[in-house]
C-alpha cells in the first residue's frame, strides 16, 4: 500500500503524460498533420534541444521579470492585507478596488504601465506580474490573518499584548500557510503575465517575443519549443512555491 501510493503519485501522471504524447505523435504521423496545426512532440523536442540556449536566455529574461513581479506583488499584497486587517475601514474601502483589479485583463493594464513607467524598461512587465500576484496574495493573506482562533486572541488580550505584538506573534505567523498558498497561486500567474506583457512593450527579449516572431514566420515547431519553455518556467515557479507551501503546512499540521 505504501509503495502503491508512491507509485500512484509519481507514476500515474508520468504514465498519462507519456500516453498522451505517444498518442499525439501517432496521430500527427498517421494523419500527416501540418506543423501549423499541431507540430509533432518529437519535432518540438528537437527544436527545444536545438534552441536550448536561446530558450534558456529568453526564459531567464521572462523569468526574472516574473520573479521581481512576484516579489513586489507578494510583499505589497501581504503588507496591504496586514494594514487592512488592522484597520477595518481600509479593508472595506479596498473591496471594490480589489474586485476591479481582479478583472482588469493584462492586455488593458500593460499599455498603461508602459506609458507610466517607460516602455524601454522592464518595469511595466514586472508591475503587470505584480498586479496579477497582488490579488490572490491579498485575499489569501487577509483570510489567513482572520483564521486566528478566538482562544489565541483571548490569550493575547489577557497578556495585554499591543497590536503590534499581536500581529507579530500571533496573526502573521498564523497566516503564513495562507500566504504561501497565495504565493503558489500567484507564481504561475506571474510568469504568464510577464510573458503576455512582452507583447505590449519593453526590450524585445523573452519568451513572448520569441513565440510571436517564430509563429509569424510559420515556424510553429520552434514557437512550440518556446511555449514548452514557458510551461517549464511556469512549472518551476509553481513547483518551488508549492513545495514551500506544503513544507509550511507540514510544519503546522495538527494543533
Amino acid at each position, binding site marked *: 500500500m505504501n509503495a502503491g501510493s508512491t507509485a*500512484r503519485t509519481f507514476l500515474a501522471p508520468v504514465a498519462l503524460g507519456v500516453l498522451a504524447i505517444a498518442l499525439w505523435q501517432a496521430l500527427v504521423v498517421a494523419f500527416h498533420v501540418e506543423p501549423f496545426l499541431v507540430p509533432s512532440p518529437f519535432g518540438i523536442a528537437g527544436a527545444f534541444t536545438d534552441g536550448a540556449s536561446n530558450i534558456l536566455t529568453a526564459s531567464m529574461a521572462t523569468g526574472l521579470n516574473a520573479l521581481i513581479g512576484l516579489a513586489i506583488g507578494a510583499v505589497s499584497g501581504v503588507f496591504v492585507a496586514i494594514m487592512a486587517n488592522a484597520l477595518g475601514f481600509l479593508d472595506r474601502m479596498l473591496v471594490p478596488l480589489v474586485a476591479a483589479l481582479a478583472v482588469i485583463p493584462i492586455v488593458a493594464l500593460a499599455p498603461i504601465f508602459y506609458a507610466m513607467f517607460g516602455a524601454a524598461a522592464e518595469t511595466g512587465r514586472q508591475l503587470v506580474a505584480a498586479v496579477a500576484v497582488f490579488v490572490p496574495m491579498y485575499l489569501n493573506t487577509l483570510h489567513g490573518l482572520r483564521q486566528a482562533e478566538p482562544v489565541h486572541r483571548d490569550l493575547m488580550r489577557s497578556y495585554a499584548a499591543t497590536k503590534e505584538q499581536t500581529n507579530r506573534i500571533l496573526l502573521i505567523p498564523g497566516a503564513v500557510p495562507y500566504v504561501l498558498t497565495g504565493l503558489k497561486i500567484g507564481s504561475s500567474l506571474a510568469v504568464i503575465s510577464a510573458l503576455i506583457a512582452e507583447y505590449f512593450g519593453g526590450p524585445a527579449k523573452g519568451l513572448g517575443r520569441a513565440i510571436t516572431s517564430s509563429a509569424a514566420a510559420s515556424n510553429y515547431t520552434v514557437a512550440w519549443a518556446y511555449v514548452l519553455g514557458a510551461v517549464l518556467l511556469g512549472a518551476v515557479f509553481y513547483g518551488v512555491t508549492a513545495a514551500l507551501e506544503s513544507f509550511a503546512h507540514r510544519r503546522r499540521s495538527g494543533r
Partner: protein
Amino acid sequence: MSKRASGVLWGIAGIVAALGLWEGYKWLGPDDGVMIGDLIVLPRTTDIAMPHTWDVVARLFEPVTRAEGADVLWWAVLQAAAFSLGIAALGWLIGVTFGLALALLMQRWITAESAVLPWVVLSQTVPLIAIAPLVKRWGSEITIGSFQWENWMSVAVIASYLAFFPVAVSALRGLKSPEAADVDLFTAYSASWWTTLLKLRLPSSVPYLMPSLRLAAANAVVGTVVAEVSIGLGGGIGRMIIEFAATASGDPAKTYAPILGAVLIGLVSAGLVALIGVGLRRYMRGEVPA
C-alpha cells in the same frame, strides 16, 4: 445603518480615495516620474500616462469618432461589454461544466486524481496568448454539416480554459470535504456512490465552489478579452482596446473607456455569480477561499 449599506459607503469612499490619490499624485508628482537612477519608480504624470479622471469620464460622453452617426462612447463601450460578457458567460459555463466533471472524475478514482491533477495545474502555465490562434485554427477545421466553427466560439473555448481550473481544484476539495463520520454514515446506509454524491458530497462542496465560481467568472472575462485581442474577434472589449490604442497619444482618455468596460463586465459577472450563491444559501456555511 445596515452592514450592507455601510459596506457600500465604505466602498464608495475607497473609490473616491483612489481617484483622489490619482489626482493628488498627478498634481504633485513630476512629469517624468520619480526616478532612482534610470529606473522610474513612481509613474509619470503627463496627460498621456495619467489622464485626469474627469477627462476620462467626460470622454465617455463624447462620440467615438467624429464620423457621421458615430455612437457616443459610453454606449459603444456598453455594447462591446455586453458582447464580451455574453462570450465570457458561455466560456464560464463550459469551464464550470468541464471543471466539475474533472473534479468528479478525480474524486471517484484516486488514480485519476494522481494522474490528472498535475497536468491540470501544468495546463495553467501555458500562456494562453500562444494557444489562442491555435484554437482558432483548429476550430476552422471543424465543419459538421451546416455547422461552421465561428471565431467567437474559439474565444469562448479560451475563456473556458482559464475558467475550468479554479473550479476543478476547489470542487475536488469540496467533494472531499465531508467529514469521515458523514461518509461513514452513508457507508453504513450502504448508499451508492451516486447517492453519496447527490446527498452529501455536492451539498458539502458548495462553500468551496462559490468562491471558485467567482474566480472562474473573473478568469473567463480576462480570457475573453485577451483572446479577442489575440485572434481579433470584433465587437468586444478586446478589439476595442487595440483599436483605441491607435489614438492613445492624441486622445489618451479614450483608451481608458474599454478598460472601464472590462472592469464593468468583471463586476457584473461577479454579481451574477453571487445571485447563484443566493439560491444556494442553504448550503453555505462560511466560504473557503479558492
